[in-house]
């Protein structure tokens, strides 16, 4: 415990340097600005802004990422409230009550409760991260390759099969990601896989190209394809921005409950913010003294889920930093951000670059504080961003997507891949396939393979080594259960439906 405090104090001494503060400020500003744009969640915000940081020093630009990440989350909730287009599934619940509040002329308090709630949740969850991360690192340092492999299998299954309404579609998305992960030179043997003689493919598929293609280009095509059928409207912010005494009274408990749900669930290798936000909404609906307002714009329904969303975002940083395990699309892209500097998150990074890890954690506190100070006064500016006509907005997004791709890898082949992934993203959205499992598959697939092969090399090829460690065996059992359970539940519910 004391170690954490000491390490964190050192982290602050890094993060409070004037240049680092400037990086954090730029990150927060850019993150919010891009996150506010409709249809762009934090994952895409980070992916689009990744190339901007290529030539900067690692600590500074990771601090900037932290700002972009937290800023993207704030920006995303603004969009969910003012237009009914959540940038990602986790903000969907916020849109539910938030957009109703905005329509009823209470957009200001809705934005305020989500901003303050995000601040409270971010603060508590980041404290949790600072306290528990060293503890998890202690445990993680004893993990063998078999344990890591099992952990990754759990992540695969939970990311693709548990969320979304069809395990089949989630797994399809995952396996296409795994296939893309095969492309390139195998690190252990030097064997080229799936390169079809194209030299640009030897280095493998870039995570950022995949993410930007799927999210930015795919989203643009999808929105264009249904523009005639589902037009969007922006709710103007009317009336006071500030929360009344009553609003505060109704918000503070949901904030805390949302945080208590979001952080632990976000920290699990299962990841994802959908479950905690949904649980928080259900709980607030049950506990509220104003049940009649739910569905018409209840402030608790914004405060709770929004806090849960932010807390779980900080929670996903836990497996990412301590185990190097990304459990959401955003975390996968953050990992790519680390990797562009040759840094690999995990127990070793805590030992080798404590300044960087703790500087990053400290900067999360700073970014969080900057956001709550900046965002409410600047809300008018952010709303004006929403008024950019849609054609120019998406045209601009595509220009940035192409620019980022070509700057990262100056070859037309990379742009062709961007286009192909864009079309793939469009088709997947159209036929209701989830996208995050593919990004996670691309980044985790090769890592899982390496761990598997290491485990088998240590055991001289004996596959029993994979279940000899009790932890690995338990994790694999959980993965198997998570894979089968939804099928069983589905079978049960169908059975019930037949009875009726």
């Amino acid at each position, binding site marked *: 415990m004391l170690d954490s405090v000491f390490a964190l104090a050192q982290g602050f001494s890094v993060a409070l340097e004037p240049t680092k503060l400037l990086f954090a400020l730029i990150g927060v500003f850019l993150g919010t600005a891009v996150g506010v744009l409709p249809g762009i969640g934090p994952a895409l915000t980070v992916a689009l802004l990744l*190339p901007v940081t*290529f*030539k900067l020093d690692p600590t500074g630009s990771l601090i900037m990422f932290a700002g972009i990440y937290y800023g993207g989350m704030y920006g995303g909730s603004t969009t969910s409230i003012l237009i009914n287009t959540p940038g990602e599934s986790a903000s969907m619940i916020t849109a539910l009550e938030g957009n109703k509040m905005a329509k009823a002329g209470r957009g200001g308090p809705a934005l305020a409760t989500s901003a303050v709630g995000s601040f409270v949740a971010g603060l508590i969850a980041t404290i949790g991260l600072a306290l528990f991360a060293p503890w998890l690192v202690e445990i993680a340092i004893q993990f063998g390759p078999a344990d890591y492999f099992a952990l990754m299998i759990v992540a695969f299954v939970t990311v693709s099969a548990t969320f979304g*309404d069809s395990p*089949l579609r989630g*797994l*399809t998305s995952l*396996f*296409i990601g795994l*296939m893309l992960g*095969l492309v390139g030179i*195998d690190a*252990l*043997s030097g*064997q080229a896989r*799936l390169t079809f003689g194209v030299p640009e493919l030897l280095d493998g598929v870039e995570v950022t190209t995949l993410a930007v293609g799927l999210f930015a*280009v795919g989203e*643009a*095509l999808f*929105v*264009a*394809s*249904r*523009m*005639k*059928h589902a037009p969007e409207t922006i709710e103007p912010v009317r009336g006071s921005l500030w929360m009344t005494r009553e609003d505060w009274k109704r918000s503070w408990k949901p904030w805390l409950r949302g945080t208590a749900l979001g952080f632990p669930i976000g920290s699990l290798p299962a990841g994802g913010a959908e479950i905690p936000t949904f649980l928080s909404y259900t709980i607030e609906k049950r506990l509220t003294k104003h049940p009649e307002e739910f569905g018409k714009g209840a402030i608790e329904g914004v405060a709770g889920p929004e806090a849960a969303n932010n807390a779980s975002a900080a929670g996903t940083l836990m497996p990412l930093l301590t185990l190097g395990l990304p459990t959401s699309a955003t975390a996968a892209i953050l990992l790519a951000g680390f990797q562009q500097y040759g840094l690999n998150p995990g127990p070793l990074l805590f030992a080798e670059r404590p300044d960087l890890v703790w500087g990053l954690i400290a900067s999360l506190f700073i970014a969080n504080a900057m956001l709550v100070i900046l965002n409410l006064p600047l809300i008018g500016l952010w709303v004006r961003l929403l008024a950019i*006509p*849609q*054609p*120019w907005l*998406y*045209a*601009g997004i*595509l*220009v940035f997507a*192409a*620019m980022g791709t*070509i*700057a990262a890898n*100056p070859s*037309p082949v990379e*742009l*062709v891949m*961007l*286009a192909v992934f*864009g*079309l793939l993203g469009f088709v997947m959205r*159209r*036929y*209701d396939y989830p996208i995050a499992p593919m990004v996670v598959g691309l980044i985790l*697939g090769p890592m899982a*393979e390496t761990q*598997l*092969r290491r*485990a*088998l*090399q240590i*055991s*001289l*090829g004996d596959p029993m080594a994979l279940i000899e460690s009790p932890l690995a065996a338990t994790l694999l059992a959980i993965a198997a259960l998570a894979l089968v359970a939804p099928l069983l539940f589905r079978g049960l519910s169908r059975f019930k439906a037949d009875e009726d």
Partner: protein
Amino acid sequence: MTQQKEDRRIAPVGFVIAAGLLVLAAFVAKDAVGMGAVSSYAGIGPSAASWAVAAGLGLLAAGTLVSTLRGEVPTPEPSDRAAVLTIVAGIAAMIATISAGGGFIPAMALLFGLTARGFGRRALATDLGIGVVLGLIVYLGFTKLLALSLPQGPIERLF
């Protein structure tokens, strides 16, 4: 889910998706065969993962086929094909311009103009103009301030 229960018709697209997955599985398997037996003193070689992925994709193709026959694949909403094609044309024009050495700014102008058109704008000349200005700002900002290299053409070499 409810959508699926309401109309239990067989959506032909399910067959296309299943076939696509099968083709991918075949590609991966063919690639794995080509690797031959790379000797590995213990454990498994580089083809094992390929085989696992190929098998997975094959199973998913079968699963998709079954769920299509059960009518579980939803029929999507109508979509505006012209809009999608216009944007794809914009992306293709951008890639072609860069490949031909036309430079970053004209490529971005084409991408911007055609995407805006795909989203329903009719003033193509104006939008191309905006694209040129945006491309110029991005080019100067990123090459001069952040020292990134972006593709050069006749226009970019002036700076």
